[in-house]
């Protein structure tokens, strides 16, 4: 199972406003009734993209045609809080997002995203708002998340130092963001630990 080395991700971006965007907002619970993750993308942010009463499209950024094809998501603090369900990062991933930039991330969401090979990096509120302005002024602005160099750059000249926990960075750039192979390899040691536990 050779995994890709994710050293850097580029694409156009869209900004989703608000702090504490929880996983229920990213993918409303009623869409989690599925036995596979395929097809979750179209329901990302459903309840804020469509008016709950009329069903009409709202002015949510994901409904704006100019942001179609955006693969970088810009967000605020504590992005992805709430439940541990991977349906949230999965739906964003299936929607087409390849990376998320926020002021901070909820821990479980961060871990789940990393395991999908979707880097989540942090910038300051001020830096994010500069990127937002650039993207809103020109939606074709390309944003590059350089995981290796810990930099976020834009095609209109921004260069910011970004942060990501070293373990996640290392896993992404060295193609170890999905740990399953290594876990399987340690089968014998695992058995040893299990045998020493009376309840197992």
């Amino acid at each position, binding site marked *: *199972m050779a995994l890709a080395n994710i050293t850097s991700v580029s694409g156009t971006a869209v900004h989703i406003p*608000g*702090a*504490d965007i*929880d996983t*229920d*907002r990213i993918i*409303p*619970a*009623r869409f*989690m*009734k*599925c*036995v*596979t*993750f395929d097809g979750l993308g179209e329901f990302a942010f459903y*309840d804020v993209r469509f008016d*709950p*009463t009329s069903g009409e499209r709202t002015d949510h950024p994901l409904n704006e045609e100019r942001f179609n094809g955006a693969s970088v998501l810009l967000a605020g603090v*504590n992005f992805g*809080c*709430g*439940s*541990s*369900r*991977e*349906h949230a*990062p*999965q739906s964003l991933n299936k929607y087409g997002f390849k990376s998320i930039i926020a002021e*901070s991330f*909820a*821990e*479980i969401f961060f*871990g*789940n995203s990393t*395991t*999908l090979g979707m880097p989540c990096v942090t910038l300051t509120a001020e830096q994010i708002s500069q990127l937002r302005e650039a993207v809103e002024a020109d939606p074709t602005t390309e944003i590059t998340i350089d995981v290796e160099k810990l930099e976020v750059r834009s095609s209109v000249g921004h260069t910011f130092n970004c942060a990501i926990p070293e*373990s*996640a960075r*290392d*896993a992404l750039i*060295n193609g*170890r963001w*999905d*740990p*399953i192979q*290594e*876990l*399987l390899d*340690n*089968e014998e*040691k*695992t058995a040893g*630990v*299990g045998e*020493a*536990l*009376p*309840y*197992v």
Partner: protein
Amino acid sequence: MGKTLYQKVWDAHTVGTLSDGRTQLFIGTHLIHEVTSPQAFGMIRDLGLTVKYPHRTFATIDHIVPTVNQDAPADPLAADMMTALRENADEFGVTYFDLASGKQGIVHVVGPEQGITQPGSTIACGDSHTATHGAFGAIAFGIGTTQVRDVLATQTMAMEPLKVRRIEVNGKLRPGVYAKDVTLHIIRLLGAKGGIGYAYEYAGELFDNMTMEERMTVCNMAIEGGARCGYVNPDEKTFEFLKGRPYTPQEDKWDAAVENWKSFASDPDAEYDHVVKINAADIKPTVTWGISPDQGISIDETIPDPSQAETEVEAKSFQEALDYMKLPGGTPIKGVRVDVAFIGSCTNGRISDFRETAKFLKGHQVAEGVQAIAVPGSQLTAIQCEKEGLDKVFEEAGFEWRAAGCSMCLAMNPDKLVGDQLCASSSNRNFKGRQGSPTGRTVLMSPVMVAAAAVTGSIADAREVFDFDPATAAA
């Protein structure tokens, strides 16, 4: 220097260090349900893997189960999930508490009930309220579907250790104040993000005196405070609760098991990354007013106004919450009209919750126009309630008595709010749209407070609605 329970359990379950620096942790007990497991089974099938320790995985069905006629979901997708779990459990030889077993229920109610939840163990489940099991001195946490896959395939997962915050609550609760209020109070105090990166150790006189079910209520909501897991050190009450349950060590092995369990408790000289001290007597019946579990106030306070916010960001989130909740800032929360009253969920759907609520509900009637539903957390809880005649008390008061499941906690089943209905709820999350309607409103509170809201038709102070004899107050 002594160690915390967290460190001891972590050390006992460490397989090694992975190349990314994370720890490979042995997961002794894996709980699964129908929502987050089918994709994981799909992944191991795709990779040609199998379930490595099938006897350490336990399955039940809870989220999508209809509570009127349990095994007949009208929704074809729900039926698919039901079938998928049944087939996966069968194919891989995993224990499954199916609807017909009489032992089905919310996974966090079933684990302890069956004695699967044990001190000193690691417990993982693709569900964020797995922290509940920490009440027994286990390190229990929610995981994502890919990690469910890892645990199925290897009985291990990659993880970074958490810091430990000791939350020490001393003194006694006042009458009418419950474990739910304690957990809402802590979250209000430390914030919904305050626990990120931490395990919470709940300690002190208050937790020592709590029943196991009360401890579960508190640990259940560790995640709403941002903490991935919460625990209480195991003690005599823990062992007493577990004795004789189907999956606990039987007689000849019991004493050795208890000795082993005791050894995991935090040492008196253990070092903590952070300590918070709270006085139990300061805690009042607490309700949420907004769309995040830390937006809580005591029942006699007024709903915050954005002008009271400390920062601009906070003012904005206050306004967003008020707009969504359609509540005016600066006015009392008491008296806000409710449409639905829900007692149940893995926070407050246990036998003691129904016993305590029934005590007060007797002789009262649900107010006109309020839909009130009581949903036991498991089939065994339902049977026990029915044995004690509690179902009749609820029904006579005008509650609908339902079958076991998650029900209106998150509405992946037919129990849903409609439009902007406001629900007085004993569950754990008040996020936007959580209870099934994108504009539905949730106010979190203790089950007795839900009963008070049901009978008055508005958010009320249970201490004013019911007769509280201070002598019979809970821990």
